[in-house]
């Protein structure tokens, strides 16, 4: 079953809507709550990243009997050095984002820690695709 969300980059206060909606659906499906929590944390981080760095984008969530696949596609600036971006504390968030409590440089780390697989494809100037996998019986 697939769900698609358009994420606007204009309003930080709306960021997290898609994650909340998916969370609600997972609860209705009876997914174990530790898996829901991991999904919530990793999808929320990724959604926020998309708003802060790439002016929004599209999220596709694919719910299968054994796994949850979340694909976040944006046409933002891309990530020049992925290895560096994965490090704790590294952040390129602007002042406005930091004032709102985002951009502490924990985002990608957090996603990695809370998912079963994280894959990032990024081309500078074209955009980034983040793919997160979580096992349903994880």
């Amino acid at each position, binding site marked *: 079953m697939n*769900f698609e969300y358009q994420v606007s980059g204009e309003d930080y206060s709306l960021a997290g809507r898609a*994650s909340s909606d998916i*969370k609600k659906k997972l609860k*209705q499906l*009876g997914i174990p709550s530790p898996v829901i929590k991991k999904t919530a*944390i990793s999808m929320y981080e990724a959604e926020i990243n998309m708003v802060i760095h790439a002016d929004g984008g599209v999220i596709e969530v694919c719910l299968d009997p054994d796994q949850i696949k979340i694909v976040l596609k944006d046409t933002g600036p891309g990530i020049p050095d992925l290895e560096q971006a994965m490090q704790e504390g590294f952040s390129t968030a602007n002042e406005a984002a930091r004032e709102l409590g985002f951009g502490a440089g924990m985002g990608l780390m957090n996603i990695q820690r*809370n998912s079963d697989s994280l894959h990032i494809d990024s081309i500078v100037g074209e955009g980034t695709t983040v793919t997160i996998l979580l096992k349903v019986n994880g």
Partner: protein
Amino acid sequence: MSENYYHSVTLDEALCKGCTVCIKGCPTEAIRVQKGRARITADRCIDCGECIRTCPSGAKKAVSDPLALLENFDYTVAIPAPTLYGQFSSDISCNRILTALKGIGFDDVFEVALSAEILSRETRNYLKERKGNAPLISSSCPVIVRLVETRFPSLIDQLVPMISPMELSARIVREKLKDSRGRVGVFFISPCAAKVTDIRTPRGIETSSVDGVIGIKDIYRELSQAIGRVETEEPLSRAHAMGISWARTDGEGSAVFSENHISVDGIEHVIDVLESLENGHIENVDFVEMMSCPGGCVGGPLTVENPYIARNIITCRERRHLPDEPVSLPEEALLDSGVLSIRWTESVESRTTHLLDPDYRKAMQMMEDMEAIRQGLPGLDCGSCGAPSCRALAEDIVRGRTTETDCVFMLRERIRELTREMIDLESRMPPGLDR
């Protein structure tokens, strides 16, 4: 089973107009309007009282225990919530209010504010000793515990695993009177509808030590008159500012003595913060006070005074009850010596009241059907169908509880289709008449 689904919040069918105002504000989507009347789904209701606040016809009520219940006991003790002190002008002393409680039939009183002080101390100790850095969530508001178990089960482990000040007060009273003969009855004087439910179906403990919960509003007139009649005020009040402050938002939170605590009130704000906690977005906070009612317990559905006025009265009294030196209550010894325990003994279980089906594959199929139905609905969330949103109606349809024609727009569409068909049929002539 029926006992499990007892609720204080109920509907007066005779007053309900079927107007659908209540369905939107319900945080657990527990209300549907069917056959012209609101119906509360028992297993979803968390007794928050939000519908009582929004119902324009006064059809939603919180039922509490009658004062007549006292007759079943030989010795009765009132344990008033600190909120009671906010219901009467600050010129009227706490002693006077407590003396008046004895005037309306109770043999003795014990302030719940005292237990709140003891629990503040225990929470501080628990914060120090616990492992991990996930924020602790206060469990003193019974609505919050029920909200977490139904909507945020992944946060159950973050709830403070301790009994409420009401429960501790009842245990202290019973301990003090353990050698007395006859039946001792302990009655909570309550601003809160959920407490009425909580003593019947408690969380974290097997059975409650409270015999009855009496709503402040139900004894307000009698108590006001008794206050007027008091000639000699008995020195009954021992509570300090900290315990009294639990009546309002941030009383409990501040008493934890942490710079990094937050205090949230009002069920919608509480849900927002619980969402953020679940998303891991709230960091560097060690304690979260959560109160379902706006303003805290002073905003409870069983109160009489305007919550803002009550809050002001409470803060006035706090200033008057500031202790000169660090407080040590004799009752603390009951805990320190192990005579009384305050920890939860039962685990709080997740209650997935929104689960579509226990079989994951079947639930998936239902969700797919639900999405298809939802896409056909207008998406206006108008509430005319009696469900709070188009999504909720789609859910009710896949659960087999209702049909698409509950939607006025869908119904109209069906009528148009039928009308077109009828006109089309009408234009055809049977061959015998077609000359």
